[in-house]
């Protein structure tokens, strides 16, 4: 396959069967490998679409500064595209994200403002919104509310899945900004009668929930629960266990959110098997495991990794 430049190579990722993890011939799991994107994550799709939309709207001009709250992948995607298109980038990121994220962002030339670990991505959003208000010439693309985020998936991820797996019965992805599920979900619901759109949500640690006043919560502006069929909360322990299972049994080295979606996917496959129903379940693998190696999630026994991460896996 040949492309004129890197940005043309976004998307069109492989869909790979999981014959060892699939419970039986009638219930098959399929992994869409989004690490096969230019910067190694699904966020390349949303980042590209948000930047292109902002250019079309005239919000971005050569030399503009982009500001974005991001726990890493979006920042990395934006940093690469900003570099190529001539924009400056400032990322607001929780201070406890893995070292690889900082390294990658700085390598692409982005600046980082760290937000306190306590409060996680919520806090990064709050800090970024404050900075945007103080610096009106900066452009905050705001992945949590930017329509181009879900549009990217409606126009690319969804059609790719339909083309590769027309017999699809379920689509499972992680729930963060909700862009992947909203966009892919909307597309699939329009084209696949009876399709189930399932969210796998990480269960965060005390640091993220602890300070949360129940009235000051955060629901991404993109989120529309009517697009989902169900939503599962997955513990860090289960996500870790399944991430390791994915590499041990299928050879796929993925990030920890993959363990999250796999856990939900396996539960759906089990239910279908118990009900004697055919299932073709596509799970979206957002990124590879490279950026998480320093967290110790892949070393030692599962118990050791769990203890090391002590519920601080998610930002």
């Amino acid at each position, binding site marked *: 396959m040949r492309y004129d430049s890197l940005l043309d190579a976004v998307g069109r990722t492989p869909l790979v069967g999981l014959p060892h993890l699939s419970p039986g011939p009638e219930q098959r799991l399929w992994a869409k490998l989004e690490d096969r994107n230019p910067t190694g994550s699904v966020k390349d799709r949303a980042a590209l679409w948000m930047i292109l939309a902002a250019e079309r709207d005239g919000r971005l001009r050569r030399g503009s500064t982009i500001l974005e709250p991001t*726990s890493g992948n979006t920042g990395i995607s934006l940093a690469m595209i900003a570099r190529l298109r001539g924009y400056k980038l400032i990322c607001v990121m929780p201070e406890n*994200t893995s070292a690889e994220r900082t390294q990658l962002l700085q390598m692409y030339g982005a600046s980082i403002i760290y937000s306190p670990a306590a409060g996680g991505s919520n806090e990064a959003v709050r800090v970024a919104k404050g900075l945007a208000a103080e610096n009106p010439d900066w452009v905050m693309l705001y992945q949590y509310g930017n329509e181009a985020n879900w549009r990217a998936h409606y126009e690319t991820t969804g059609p790719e899945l339909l083309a590769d797996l027309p017999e699809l019965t379920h689509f499972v992805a992680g729930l963060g900004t909700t862009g992947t599920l909203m966009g892919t979900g909307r597309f699939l619901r329009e084209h696949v009668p009876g399709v189930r759109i399932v969210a796998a949500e990480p269960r965060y640690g005390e640091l993220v929930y602890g300070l949360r006043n*129940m009235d000051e*919560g*955060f629901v991404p502006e993109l989120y529309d*629960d009517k697009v989902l069929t169900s*939503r*599962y909360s997955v513990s860090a322990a289960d996500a870790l266990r399944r991430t390791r299972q994915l590499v041990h049994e299928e050879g796929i080295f993925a990030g920890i*959110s993959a363990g999250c979606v796999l856990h939900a996917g396996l539960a759906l496959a089990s239910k279908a098997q118990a009900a004697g129903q055919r299932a073709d379940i596509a799970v979206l693998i957002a990124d590879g495991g490279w950026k998480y190696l320093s967290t110790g999630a892949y070393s030692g026994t599962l118990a050791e990794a769990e203890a090391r991460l002590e519920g601080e896996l998610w930002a």
Partner: protein
Amino acid sequence: MAIDVRIPTILRTFTGGAKSVEGSGDTLDELIADLDTRHAGLRGRLVDDSGLRRFVNVYLNDEDVRFLGGLDAKVKDGDTVTVLPAVAGGMR
């Protein structure tokens, strides 16, 4: 009949610091009302006139109850209910 209900840190003032409490009921609504009889004020933090409060997420055996009927979701002995605040997503 016992249903295990996990309580987020911010609401443990209602449970005397307990991370989880037990309750009973046939629906989530009944369960919350039951908890409120022993932990006064808890219901008010979870429910308002429109149903479950906007920034409150409740999971029944790890599934978001908003997809299981919300307050009308059926609960039974041995179930686990987890209450969590709604937060922004992101990976470390």
